[in-house]
């Protein structure tokens, strides 16, 4: 039916249907009630980098060997690493200081791409607001280190690939070591 004013009535019917429908059809209300309802993040969601450690002890299981490749590659230069040294001043294969300034980080993931030790990975935690401007946005080693099981829980596919690669590397190394040991065992006999 078309008469003057029918357009307004149709419009009123549409809003009335939406108004009433929002009380009966739950899927109309798509708003997430944020602190109570969390969004289901897609698997590749990423926020800022973190450091993976194996096993239970963060310091002992740290994969990072302080090679500083990520520090050099980081485009906004938000990574700061100081290599650890023992009492004699000999460089150790672990960082003493590892800081990431997430107020500078642009989440480009280049550090993750270049890391040869599968040590640095992207986190999915987005609740990083703080009450101060500088201090709490510079993440130190203690806050960066997160366990491999946490990594598996946020990025299962990627973590499984990494684990498989590490496992393969370890086997290859073991095989090489075994071969070397066998060779070493053979050599003295051959020398005789």
């Amino acid at each position, binding site marked *: 039916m078309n008469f*003057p004013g029918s357009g307004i009535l149709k419009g009123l019917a*549409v*809003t009335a249907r939406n108004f009433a429908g929002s009380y009966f059809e739950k899927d109309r209300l798509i708003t997430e009630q944020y602190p109570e309802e969390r969004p289901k993040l897609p698997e590749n969601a990423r926020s800022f980098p973190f450091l993976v450690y194996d096993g239970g002890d963060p310091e002992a299981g740290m994969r990072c060997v302080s090679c500083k490749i990520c520090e050099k590659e980081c485009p906004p230069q938000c990574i700061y690493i100081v290599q650890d040294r023992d009492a004699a001043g000999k460089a150790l294969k672990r960082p003493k200081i590892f800081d990431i300034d997430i107020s500078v980080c642009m989440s480009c993931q280049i550090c993750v791409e270049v890391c040869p030790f599968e040590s640095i990975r992207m986190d999915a935690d987005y609740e990083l607001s703080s009450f101060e401007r500088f201090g709490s946005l510079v993440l130190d080693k203690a806050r960066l280190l997160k366990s491999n099981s946490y990594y598996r829980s946020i990025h299962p596919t990627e973590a499984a690939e990494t684990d498989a690669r590490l496992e393969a590397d370890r086997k290859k190394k073991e095989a090489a070591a075994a071969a070397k040991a066998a060779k070493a065992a053979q050599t003295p006999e051959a020398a005789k």
Partner: protein
Amino acid sequence: MDLLERAPIELKSWFLSLLGSFGVPQWILSVLSALLIIGTVIGVFLGLFALMSVMERKILARAQNRYGPNRVGFFRWRLFGLFQPVADGIKMITKEDLVPRTADKAVHFLAPVAMMIPALMVLAILPYGRDMVPAELDAGLLYFFAVGAGTEVAVFMAGWASNNKYSVLGAMRAIAQMISYEIPLVIAAIIAAMISGSLSPSAIVAAQGGFTWGFVPQWFVFTPWGFAACLVFYIGALAESNRSPFDLPEGESELVAGHLTEYSGFKYATFFMAEYVGMFAVCGMLVTLFLGGWQAPLPLLTIIPSWCWFLGKVCFVAFTMVWVRATLPRLRIDHLLAFAWKFLLPMSFAAFLAAACWHYAGRGPLAWFLSLAIVAVPYLILGTAFSNRFALSRRLYQFSE
């Protein structure tokens, strides 16, 4: 039931007689009696305003499939966000009150007050229930429109005193709009006064009492002329209270906030409050004139107190105003004025004529159909002409095509 019906009046006289028994002099009692009525009316309407400010947001949200405000509660209890007005009030009071350096300070200060006073004064003559009129005036209707017109001055005061071009433009629009829509509004009101033969709101409500065939209420809205006049009054009321789709004076897309641009803090809150109280007053007038005032819609339902009916009807009309706001976009200023003068005014005259014919044709079924014809024919002609005049056509891009 009769007790509940008279509860507010009985409560007041009981309280006063209690004070009287303590030897409080008579003149204090009569002043106190007036103050009690004023306090109750203002309290109820400010409570309605607080409720409306949150319910409007919730209804609009629901019409857009959102939740709306549902957070502010009392400590742990959220209560559907019904404590939102408290939070809003605290925010408004604690905000800085900015006055532009070049503003006319006295007028800038007085404008919110000048807006609030008429909005509260018009509440005096509404019949809230059987024998419940704060001020029984013989020319109550005249008083309502005479005092209500004061808000226009207040809006212009606000716009002029702010010394801001957006404010002045908003105020000019408001004046043009309010004066244009006042005419159909008043003519629609005159129709009800003409049929009931009185300018007193109580008499107009009394004229709508009783039921045809025992169940159809004799409210004016159920006659063709009454329906047309009610719609004209409703549209006029929307425009008078600056509500969407007639909220051009505050059109934020082009005028920042119109006459409210330079107001902040409690002065802004006062404007906001005055607008909503004014809206409720005009809803109350609409209910009084066309929707039978405090009369129950069915004989059976008269057991519910009359003041509940009045309040319920006012809330219903206010709900429809939010519904319209959720539906219609804002008009353009020339369309708005053309609508007032070329459509609404002729329609109010047609309703006027129809009401007169209805009365002189004996108020029977024949008169009913006669008045229907007198209202419907101009509506169809004007409406078709209007929709053709503003019909959307394919836009021609002169240079690109």
